[in-house]
């Protein structure tokens, strides 16, 4: 997968939140083979744990994609992005402008506005968006070179709620990297997304909340590889009726 002229060696991106321990997190990063991990910014604590986490993450060698999670307005998201750029020393930003605190649905109007501001400021924006085509077009016009549509609500583990919409996005945005960002729960969900022609998936809860996060990271990596290989192999068309796979010609008359 190539995003913003950077060739990534894996189609899997991994979130770093909610793991039972930092050891589980580093184990999952290694097992997933991911090239990119997402990170965030929160208020500095008295014991300065943030710097320790950041040092640990840098040792994994993964490229970081800071997010603006929890931002509900354009100004919050833009300010958070600028703070993240300074701390994490990257122009990459996973832009989230959240519309609803309960559904965590993106505020796509604020998202487009913030994306334009940040792209003009030199950011390389990864927008967390819905599967709406028009919103996708406006995000590209605002300067985004990648789209991150949701599969299902963040953290829900429901899988692909609307695969037809993602299939339509794939057809409409040929050549644009598409990464399913949210809502995947199982390896089959990740494989399904990749079979649709998505360029990548971003997983967090599905791995971190598994009983064995490291084993799930490995399973997800295999699923992403299988789904991608399946897409490239051009799957057969579905049929309404049965078609015998064993040749009928030469069938004996035994009645």
């Amino acid at each position, binding site marked *: 997968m190539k995003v913003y002229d950077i060739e990534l060696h894996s189609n899997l991106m991994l979130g770093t939140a909610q793991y039972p321990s930092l050891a589980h997190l580093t184990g999952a990063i290694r097992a997933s083979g991911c090239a990119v991990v997402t990170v965030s910014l929160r208020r500095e604590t008295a014991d300065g744990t943030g710097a320790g986490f950041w040092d640990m*993450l840098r040792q994994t060698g993964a490229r970081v994609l800071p997010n603006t999670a929890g931002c509900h307005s354009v*100004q919050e998201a833009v300010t958070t992005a600028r703070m993240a750029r300074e*701390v994490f020393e990257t122009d990459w930003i996973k832009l989230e402008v959240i519309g609803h605190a309960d559904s965590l649905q993106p505020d796509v109007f604020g998202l487009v506005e913030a994306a334009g501001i940040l792209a003009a400021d030199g950011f390389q924006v990864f927008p967390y968006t819905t599967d709406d085509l028009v919103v996708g077009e406006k995000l590209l016009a605002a300067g985004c070179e990648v789209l991150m549509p949701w599969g299902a609500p963040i953290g829900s583990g429901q899988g692909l709620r609307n695969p037809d919409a993602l299939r339509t996005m794939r057809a409409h945005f040929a050549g644009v990297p598409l990464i399913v960002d949210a809502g995947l729960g199982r390896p089959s969900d990740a494989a399904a997304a990749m079979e649709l022609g998505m360029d990548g998936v971003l997983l967090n809860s599905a791995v971190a909340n598994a009983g064995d996060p490291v084993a799930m990271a490995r399973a997800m990596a295999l699923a992403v590889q299988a789904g991608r290989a399946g897409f490239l192999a051009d799957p057969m068309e579905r049929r309404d009726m049965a078609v015998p796979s064993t040749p009928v010609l030469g069938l004996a008359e035994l009645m």
Partner: protein
Amino acid sequence: MHITVNAKPHDISAQTLAGALAELGVVSPAIATAVNGLFVARDARATTRLAAGDRVEILAPMQGG
């Protein structure tokens, strides 16, 4: 001067953001700052003057999805 730092009230004598960070004992290089909702770059902290009632945010790396 009364200011708010990460939503907690503080009484500081420093006049600048850099001075306030030093006074509060914030020494980690892995932080970013904002005053009243606007980003203040590391290089600008020494010249950013604070006023009573200012809201300072000091953010650090954290796990995220």
